[in-house]
């Protein structure tokens, strides 16, 4: 009699909050980050950046810089263009029916944003490089510029790219049903708008690269603080005109990424070409003022919804405009596509008319940012729910219950074509209500209002499609892992997914250690090296455990099967009677009969023609995991599904608003999070806590502001770009809910992207709940004192149709 041992039966590590396997090295400061890498003969790059938002380059004079102290090489945009091709777009808008433009590592004819690289220096030290940058004379012909998205859409706006007929990159419709017909018959209609500010992600480690060109081999080794080594290799090879197999990309330890370290940045190929042309290894480390240039998320939403007196939403129209700055090669603009696609999140709204318009401007380009556009959808949908509730005088929780997909309806196909795997949204709402103790809070709110104190409680539901695959791009939805057990019984895992620091490496080791029955300390994992690991797409879209984790699970199962065969022969018992655990294979029926895993491994390698006959050596397996549910063949309505899993969460925020000053204090914050099967609860909580802090920052303070007079970024340091500190956020309260995904091997869903939009929405709803007696609607994010106070002073109720 044989039976499959499910992972839970032999679980030693899976499901436990195992500590980071290399945490001690982090704490001791022994991890190697990009700036720790020093290559003999290494020089430093300095980058000359445009001081103008829009200007023609008349001339670049490098003569003074080229003879400056320590300088060995100088490079203009025109010269760089002789050696490099344009950087391939991560997601080319042209492939989706939009406009595109060439993006080069150094601008050639004109600059389109402040901070655009124009020329570069290689010098002995960073100090020499920075000093020489100041000696480069660039003559510009200043052109009119536009930094506001809606102004940029006007016919008379300065044309950012001369070969375009306007500044619109693309408009993407997401249409289902006939909204106008529904509006015509509607019981209630509500129209309003919400401006989401430009803000970004700020990992503690900025970007940085070290490029080493080997002239004998005509090959590059590129060390980069990056998220996607293999796809980056493809980009570098195309830009640098070398074969893909002549580029090795190594990602050392990364100190946070959040999308910022997805590639397409000009400095990536630039560092490489500087190494080749100067003959020296070249390092470039980003300054925080440069990190701050990278933008994301700015959207202007104008929405209209119809609903019944019972709170059932019948139609939704939202035509929104996203100002993505200059078009860069990173995947920034694609966020807008996802904002549109994610409507109407977990709500059943039959008729939707969503139009996502992406416009270029003379702000610096976007890159991906955690949430990848879905955070904007969450914010807008959750505001809509609360506005409908206010309009009807209903409890916003009840409006959610009336409209959310019910647990028996999964899998559920949304209007946008997404196929939502599993969940129990109503149960999650109930848990959130219980966790926060709603009745007591409502009583307190009532009491405080008597003293003109404004307590508010806000809920938000968040659906996060994760682990996506965008057809025709290197945004892949599968990944690969190798598990190898050596003759000593030690395990090495190589995987195509990378970690930005969140712990997927440890989680993968938990899965593998359980399958092959070893102590986790006997396993190691290698990520982020295109020469060592199997092909993979790295980390984004909450994909690392869904793809790399499940691939490692399959590979480890292969090893497990071989170990069980040998153990059964050596212990003379049935395979189903054997437990692999903590370095031992042990008979379940007679626990005195046991053998070390290391002895089994040694047997496979040394007795291949005796005891191990029929068991194929070595103990190695490489497996790919392609989750189910991705549907790239258009359905009858022409819709595709690019996401296999859909984590969800209910957020609840308790805030107090000082109505005299507009200051918001977050008193409590709770989350009920459903990421499917959990491998390591603490890591999942860590992801949610970090994202929640980001969402609170997004709700209350984070804002990248360009000076309208100069086009310069005014918020270029942490004193002006405000992020929440520990003392600005409460202790996070969290509850897990587990509805395994039927479409992934272990039932896991993504757990990396959720939280930003949900937290932002819950805080925003809480502020409005607090200010309900004053009838305030705030239409400009973030809810900083300036915007809140302005809304209170110019008090007005929601726009009624």
């Amino acid at each position: 009699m044989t039976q499959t041992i499910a992972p839970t039966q032999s679980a030693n590590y899976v499901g436990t909050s195992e500590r980071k396997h290399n945490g001690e090295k982090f704490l001791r400061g022994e991890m190697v980050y990009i700036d720790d890498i020093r290559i003999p003969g290494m020089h430093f790059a300095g980058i000359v950046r445009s001081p103008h938002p829009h200007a023609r380059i008349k001339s670049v004079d490098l003569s003074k810089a080229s003879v400056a102290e320590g300088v060995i090489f100088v490079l203009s945009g025109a010269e760089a263009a002789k050696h490099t091709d344009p950087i391939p777009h991560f997601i080319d808008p042209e492939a989706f029916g939009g406009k595109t433009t060439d993006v080069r590592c150094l601008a050639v004819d004109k600059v389109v944003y402040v901070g655009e690289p124009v020329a570069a220096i290689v010098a002995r030290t960073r100090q020499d490089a920075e000093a020489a940058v100041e000696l480069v004379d660039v003559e510009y012909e200043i052109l009119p510029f536009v930094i506001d998205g809606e102004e940029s859409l006007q016919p008379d706006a300065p044309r950012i790219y001369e070969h375009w007929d306007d500044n619109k990159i693309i408009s993407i419709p997401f249409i289902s049903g006939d909204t106008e017909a529904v509006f015509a018959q509607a019981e209630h209609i509500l129209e309003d708008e919400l401006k989401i500010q430009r803000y970004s992600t700020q990992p503690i480690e900025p970007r940085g690269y070290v490029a080493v060109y080997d002239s004998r081999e005509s090959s590059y080794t590129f060390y980069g603080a990056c998220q996607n080594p293999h796809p980056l290799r493809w980009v570098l090879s195309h830009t640098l005109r070398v074969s893909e197999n002549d580029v090795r990309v190594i990602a050392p330890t990364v100190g946070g990424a959040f999308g910022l370290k997805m590639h397409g940045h000009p400095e990536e190929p630039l560092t490489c070409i500087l190494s080749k042309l100067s003959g020296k290894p070249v390092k470039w480390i980003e300054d925080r003022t440069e990190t701050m240039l990278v933008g994301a998320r700015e959207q202007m939403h104008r929405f209209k919804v119809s609903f019944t007196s019972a709170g059932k939403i019948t139609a939704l129209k939202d035509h929104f405009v996203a100002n993505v700055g200059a078009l860069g090669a990173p995947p920034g603009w694609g966020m807008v596509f996802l904002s549109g696609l994610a409507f109407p999140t977990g709500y059943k709204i039959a008729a939707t008319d969503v139009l996502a318009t992406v416009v270029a401007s003379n702000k610096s380009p976007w890159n991906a940012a955690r949430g990848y556009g879905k955070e904007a959808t969450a914010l807008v949908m959750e505001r809509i729910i609360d506005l409908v509730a206010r309009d009807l005088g209903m409890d916003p929780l009840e409006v959610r219950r009336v409209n959310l997909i019910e647990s028996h309806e999964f899998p559920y196909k949304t209007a946008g074509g997404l196929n939502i795997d599993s969940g129990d949204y109503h149960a999650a709402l109930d848990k959130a209500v219980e966790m926060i103790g709603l009745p007591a809070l409502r009583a307190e709110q009532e009491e405080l209002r008597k003293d003109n104190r404004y307590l508010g409680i806000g809920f938000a539901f968040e659906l996060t499609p994760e682990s996506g695959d965008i057809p025709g791009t290197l945004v892949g939805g599968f990944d690969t892992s190798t598990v190898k057990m050596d003759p000593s019984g030690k395990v090495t895992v190589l995987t195509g997914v990378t970690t930005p620091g969140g712990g997927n490496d440890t989680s993968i080791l938990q899965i593998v250690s359980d399958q092959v029955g070893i102590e986790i300390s006997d396993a190691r994992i290698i990520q982020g090296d295109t020469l060592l690991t199997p092909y993979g797409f790295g980390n984004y879209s909450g994909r690392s455990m869904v793809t790399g984790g499940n691939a490692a699970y399959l590979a480890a199962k292969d090893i497990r099967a071989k170990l069980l065969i040998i153990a059964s022969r050596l212990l003379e018992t049935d395979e189903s009677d054997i437990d692999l655990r903590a370095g031992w294979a042990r008979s379940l029926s007679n626990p005195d009969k046991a053998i070390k895993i290391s002895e089994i491994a040694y047997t496979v390698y040394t007795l291949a023609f005796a005891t191990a006959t029929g068991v194929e050596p070595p103990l190695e397996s490489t497996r790919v995991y392609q989750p189910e549910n991705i549907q790239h063949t258009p359905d009858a309505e022409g819709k595709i599904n690019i996401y296999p899993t859909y984590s969800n969460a209910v957020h609840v925020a308790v805030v107090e608003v000082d109505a005299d000053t507009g200051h918001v204090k977050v008193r409590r914050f709770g989350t009920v999070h459903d990421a499917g099967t959990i491998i390591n609860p603490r890591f999942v909580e860590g992801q949610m806590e970090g994202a929640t802090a980001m969402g609170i920052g997004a709700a209350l303070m984070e804002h990248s502001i360009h000076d309208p007079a100069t086009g310069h970024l005014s918020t270029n340091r942490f004193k002006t770009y405000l992020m929440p500190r520990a003392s600005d956020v409460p202790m996070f309260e969290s509850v897990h809910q587990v509805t395994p995904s039927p479409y992934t091997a272990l039932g896991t869903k993504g757990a990396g992207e959720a939280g930003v939009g949900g937290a932002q929405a819950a805080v925003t709803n809480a502020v409005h709940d607090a200010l309900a007696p004053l009838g305030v609607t705030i239409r400009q994010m973030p809810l900083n004192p300036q915007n809140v106070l302005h809304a209170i002073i110019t008090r007005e109720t929601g726009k009624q149709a």
Partner: protein
Amino acid sequence: MIAHRFKYSCPRSAEEAAAELAQMEGEETAIISGGTWVVPEMSHHLRRPKLVIDLKLAGLAGVSAEADAVVIGPATTYTQLAHSKHTPNFLKKVVAGITGGSQIRNRGTIGGSACYANPASDIPGALVTMKASLHLRAHSSTRIVEAADFFLDANVTLLEPDEILESISIPSTNDENLFSYAKFKTAQGSWPIVTIGCIASEDGVARRVIVGGAGAIPFAVDLDGQESEDEVLQRVHAAMRQPWSDVFATADTRRHIAGVMTQRAVREIAAAKNGEKS
């Protein structure tokens, strides 16, 4: 990273520092104490002084009590102010709210903050509240100016290019009086939008409230203690003559918040007074 080359000097006294300054003859010079303003500006290439004079060894740190004043060296750090038994109570409260972590509190100095005259810093308003006098030294002369006269505009003071701030004296007459200090900011780590300082008169009345952050320089709101709340607001709005705005708040918002915070300070002092009586 600081890219340009400059001369660095570490004089042993205020006199030595002033003598060096006198020789610079219009060349850009930066005087640093903790360096928390100047060094980041140099790193960002916003400032390229030919000479950096570091006051750390000039003997200008410390708090001492004299007959009718507390004398504070300009190079005294926030941490030192927090720990000195001579630091006036009002200033202790101000210092307790300085954020930026221990690195800033251990490096940032009272004199540096005064001379930098950032509208959003605590110290300018605090010095005006305490009616501090500032002792300025040039190579061949010294002079004393009142804090209320020292600040001219955002980042502009009476300090001449050849002068350094040598000491700060704070009259000790008011130190036992009721006081209030509050600041309004967006987040824990951000610069204040408004600071409000008030040291009550001996009879426990908020007669002079100093508003910092709201305008380009701190300004005084003079009251007689009989005003209605609305009148307090009007006094604040009338007293703000040099408006200031930044990425956090417009001048209008600052004016509004300054009014609210002043009302609260007056209420707080009144409540404290009543609390003492009962």
